[in-house]
């Protein structure tokens, strides 16, 4: 009798143990927090609707339901060279429901003015989705048909070549200045309000050269109105239209000017949320539909994960600072105030 009772007790304790462990492994599931994301995610685009960054965001947002389970809402907050939108991003709650566009333009403002945050170090990277190297373009009927002829002309006529750019300190400005520095020539910069007036002015012969995004120039190159002399990238462009265009590096001038597009988030998002976000973006950015849309918008689709992206910002900012110093642009900006 005692043995029977002992067996029964042990048996029931064993059963209880099994049941408890069984329940134990299932209670985490029922007591689990709701999985992120549970509501739509906001993307702050610091530019007006229709711009290339805005379109990239919309292209990605289109597939977000597939990969993250929630739609994305685009909020445009243009102004002050993207500062307004970026500041708002920095200010926002790091809960993973507010992210924003991070592109090559954002590392500039903290270097030349007093901005609320240093965007390169005060934000976390989510993903880079694409990039494109800039090219040097001139009119087809210009007296220089190759990059060598261009440099020689510039050497022989200092200050005669007027090139346009889309904003002081922008890639379109720093790249030609880098070239000028390395080639030992003098060119006059003329600021423009955007890509469209820039290209128009070049076509009309009011300026002699520009450095710009090659996709914006596609139509004109195809129509043989504009000639591309060189590419400011590590390698030549894949597109058959530009396969004969040498890189600056090939010709001995180390001019690298790349426009990159991606997304960033305020610092402090909890690690698991950030991981879900980053993984989701990786899938969204490599989705064939998105890739096609980005190509149509002029980007070479290229994914970089969030952590690398964040580190990339810092290196980019440092090299930009170096360029601004070397080319004297920084000095020029400071001189604007007496």
């Amino acid at each position, binding site marked *: 009798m005692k043995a029977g009772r002992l067996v029964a007790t042990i048996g029931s304790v064993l059963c209880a143990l099994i049941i408890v462990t069984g329940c134990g492994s299932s209670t985490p599931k029922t007591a689990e927090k709701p999985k992120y994301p549970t509501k739509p995610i906001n993307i702050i685009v610091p530019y007006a609707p*229709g711009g290339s960054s805005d379109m990239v965001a919309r292209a990605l947002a289109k597939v977000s339901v597939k990969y993250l389970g929630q739609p994305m809402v685009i909020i445009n907050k243009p*102004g002050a060279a993207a500062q*307004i939108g970026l500041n708002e991003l920095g200010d926002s709650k790091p809960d993973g429901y507010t992210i924003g566009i991070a592109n090559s333009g954002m590392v500039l403002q903290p270097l030349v003015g007093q901005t609320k945050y240093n965007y390169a170090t005060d934000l976390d990277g989510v993903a880079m989705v694409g990039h494109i190297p800039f090219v040097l373009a001139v009119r087809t009927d210009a007296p220089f048909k190759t990059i060598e002829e261009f440099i020689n002309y510039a050497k022989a006529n200092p200050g005669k070549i007027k090139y346009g750019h889309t904003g002081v300190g922008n890639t379109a400005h720093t790249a030609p200045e880098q070239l000028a520095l390395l080639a030992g020539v003098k060119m006059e910069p003329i600021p423009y309000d955007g890509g469209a007036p820039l290209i128009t002015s070049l076509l009309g012969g009011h300026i002699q050269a520009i450095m710009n995004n090659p996709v914006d120039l596609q139509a004109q190159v195809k129509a043989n109105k504009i000639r591309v002399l060189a590419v400011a990238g590590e390698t030549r462009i894949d597109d058959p239209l530009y396969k004969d265009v040498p890189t600056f590096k090939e010709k001995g001038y180390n001019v690298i000017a790349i426009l990159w597009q991606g997304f960033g988030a305020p610092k402090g998002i909890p690690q698991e949320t950030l991981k879900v976000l980053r993984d989701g973006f990786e899938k969204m950015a490599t989705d064939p539909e998105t890739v096609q849309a980005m190509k149509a918008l002029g980007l070479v689709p290229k994914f970089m994960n969030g952590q690398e992206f964040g580190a990339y910002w810092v290196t980019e900012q440092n090299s930009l600072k170096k360029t601004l110093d070397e080319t004297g642009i920084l000095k020029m900006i400071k001189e604007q105030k007496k």
Partner: protein
Amino acid sequence: MLFQGFAASLELQNLFAAFVGVTLGTIAGVLPGIGISGTIALLLPISFGMDTLTALIMFSGIYYGAMYGGSTTSILVNVPGEGASVVTCLEGHQMAKKGRAGAALAVAAIGSFVAGTLGVVGITFFAPPLANAALAFGPPEYFSISLLGLVVLTNLSGKSPLRAFIMMLVGLMIGTVGIDPMTAINRFTFGSTQLAKGLDFIIIVMGLFGMGEVIATICERQTDIKVEKVKFRDLYPTITEIKRSIMPIFRGGFIGFFMGLIPGPSATISTFVSYALEKKISKHPEEWGHGAIEGVAGPESANNAASSSQMIPLLSLGIPFTSSAALLLSGFMIHGIQPGPMLVSSQPVLFWGLIASMYVGNVMCLILNLPLVGVFASLLRVPLNLLMPVVAVITFTGAYVLNYSLFDLGVLFVFGLLGYLFQKSGFEPAPLAIGAFLGPQLEQGLMQAMIICEGSLWNMMTRPLAGAMLWLTTLLVVGVLVKTLIKYMNSRRGLS
């Protein structure tokens, strides 16, 4: 070629797309603040799945549907929905106050239709050569046009030229607040990021004209006046009014079409120019400022024609001259179409289909808008004490939607107060608006032109286009000074 295009555009799904586009565009135009850009941007993702031509037709529909709708709020409640509708406020709203709102709206719609259609005809036949002509305009030309525009248009208001000039200068000053795009430094921002954004022109005019009117009405006991019932006949224009509008419509359309080829917000400028022209040659000068119908017919036609011709650089060169055109360009590119010199030859059906749909779209706009004239005009029968608060709310909402900024709402209100004060004291708000609008363009053109011409004014004066305009400007300024001097001398002589 064109007939093939018509055949394509009249397909059922394309007709439907055009209708949707035009309707959305009109709604977007009527609601102040939310503009073409916002609407197109919203619909772009949806359009990914559509057939290319269908999507493009829808976008173009939105584009000029908005042009039709923008005048509605300007006339009814003095709130300009966008830059191109500001001038319509001047005469259109005055007409509304006199009970002629329906007439104004109808004339605006008809004028827009005629001019828009003429514009499309222009595109059909003259696109490539015109596009190339547009290229001849460089920064020195932009500067000269802006300067000429400022001088000409500051004389818009009859009263004191001195005051008008001051208002214009104030407008210019406002235009310089913010990050200078040329040199990337902050000007007059006193460390505020909000100010670094600059003061948006649309917010300023919505405040000056729209809020100003609201405040004026509320503060002047006008809300206690009962509005009389308006007869149906009054809802549509009389024969005289129509007759008087015909020539302004053609003139406005002509002006608008050519100005649309110039980069920048040319639609708005063309409305100012048309207004000034009509005023100068008007046979009823005393009516101006109190509801002259030519002041609605001309500018409205101008802005529709301009929006048509803005398509020319877009389609023939692949270069967008305004932000809404840029959106259209994005729309094209997403669908894999590269507008440019090769478009006509590589995608004839697309090109001509689009053009044909613009004709169709214009007709649709007219059909849509004319009956609505009656509806809208009768909105004014709502007693002012209820209407004005609603207008205020519309204005605030629209302003917020523009930039999602609460700061803007504050700016709106401040300018509303200023607009009210100006109204009461003989300082005209229009020159200020013009100054704020042209200021950035003027400055940019000046800076660029100075570098291009290497600092020499003479260099600029000897360029064919820029030079002609600069000489004209100089003559005008001298002329005004001489006239003022003569008047002063005469009044002196009269006294003694």
